[in-house]
């Protein structure tokens, strides 16, 4: 079996970096189309390093949502990282210092988590840093490229890009809901609930951010009660 080195980490993350480059390029363009200054998208990618959360956050910034609404929505949407970090925590070598753990936490994205867990052995800090450095470069580089492209696009095309963020949301949820009846059910419940919250007089006074949070939490809770999933065992 190959040992887990820094170089292997870099190499294993090349497919992730390429995928990240295109997604974060779209993120950069979307921020420009939402009339954010050029430094905004690269700064968000440098400090957040999360796909869905960044798109949702940028969307809420464009709508002028309250800071507390943004925090709550991100807590809800990023709750899965909590779970992933608990799993990853059990795989990290006991030689990794507290500082090392704090650094690795920043890079625990869905894709890096998946690749790290595939190794089926104790993970050292060199390998994790290789994975994270390569993926993060793709993420930030793509964002800068997208921001530059977005700044030179004609104004009509930029206004048409308002749809892009929603198109990406659709592209994230549709493939899994095709295969999974529980996810399909959760999606249907969330859609109906949020329409009720948006179009019912009086109730729609709570505002769009809160109705998204409530619809999302209620739909996921109903899904968990109706279709509890067996937990994957990563330690085999």
């Amino acid at each position, binding site marked *: 079996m190959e040992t887990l080195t820094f170089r292997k980490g870099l190499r294993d993350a090349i497919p992730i970096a390429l995928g990240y480059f295109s997604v974060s390029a779209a993120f950069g363009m979307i921020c420009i189309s939402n009339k954010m200054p050029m430094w905004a998208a690269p700064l968000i990618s440098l400090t957040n390093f999360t796909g869905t959360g960044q798109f949702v956050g940028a969307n809420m910034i464009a709508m002028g949502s309250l800071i507390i609404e943004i925090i709550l929505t991100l807590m809800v949407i990023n709750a899965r990282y909590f779970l992933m970090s608990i799993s990853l925590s059990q795989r990290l070598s006991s030689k990794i210092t507290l500082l090392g753990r704090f650094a690795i936490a920043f890079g625990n994205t869905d894709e890096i988590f998946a690749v790290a867990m595939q190794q089926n052995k104790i993970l050292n800090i060199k390998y994790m840093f290789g994975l994270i450095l390569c993926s993060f470069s793709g993420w930030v580089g793509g964002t800068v490229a997208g921001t530059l492209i977005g700044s030179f696009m004609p104004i009509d095309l930029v206004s048409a890009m308002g749809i892009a963020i929603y198109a990406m949301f659709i592209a994230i949820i549709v493939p899994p809901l095709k295969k999974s009846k529980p996810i399909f059910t959760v999606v249907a419940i969330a859609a109906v609930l949020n329409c009720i919250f948006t179009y019912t007089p009086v109730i729609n006074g709570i505002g769009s951010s809160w109705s998204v949070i409530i619809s999302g939490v209620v739909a*996921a809770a109903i*899904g968990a009660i109706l279709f509890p999933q067996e937990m994957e065992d990563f330690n085999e």
Partner: protein
Amino acid sequence: MNNVYLLLAVTAMAITTYLIRAIPLVLFRKKLKNKYLYSFLNYIPYAVLTALIVPGILYSTKSAVSIDSIATTQNIITACIGGAVALILSLLNRSLIIVAVASTIAVYIAQFILSSI
């Protein structure tokens, strides 16, 4: 756009995202045992994304001339066209960037046609 608001929002996003990742990695070494909590956390991203799409997508294509009600109806039509393109390509398992670019082009063309009628 207000730079102070933007910086505050970005800082809030960064801290929230980081703490959720860091706290379990540093404090929790035990395994999660509750399958209902596990399922809830798995379903949450899909549920929240859906609530963001429906009905928000309908109002996502405001063009430069979206002040009167006619323009709004027009925007809803272009948004539906863009949404349909995204849905079809996603059903065909196309990548995120392809779906985003194709639906943007669809909206762009639809805007052009509707405004020249």
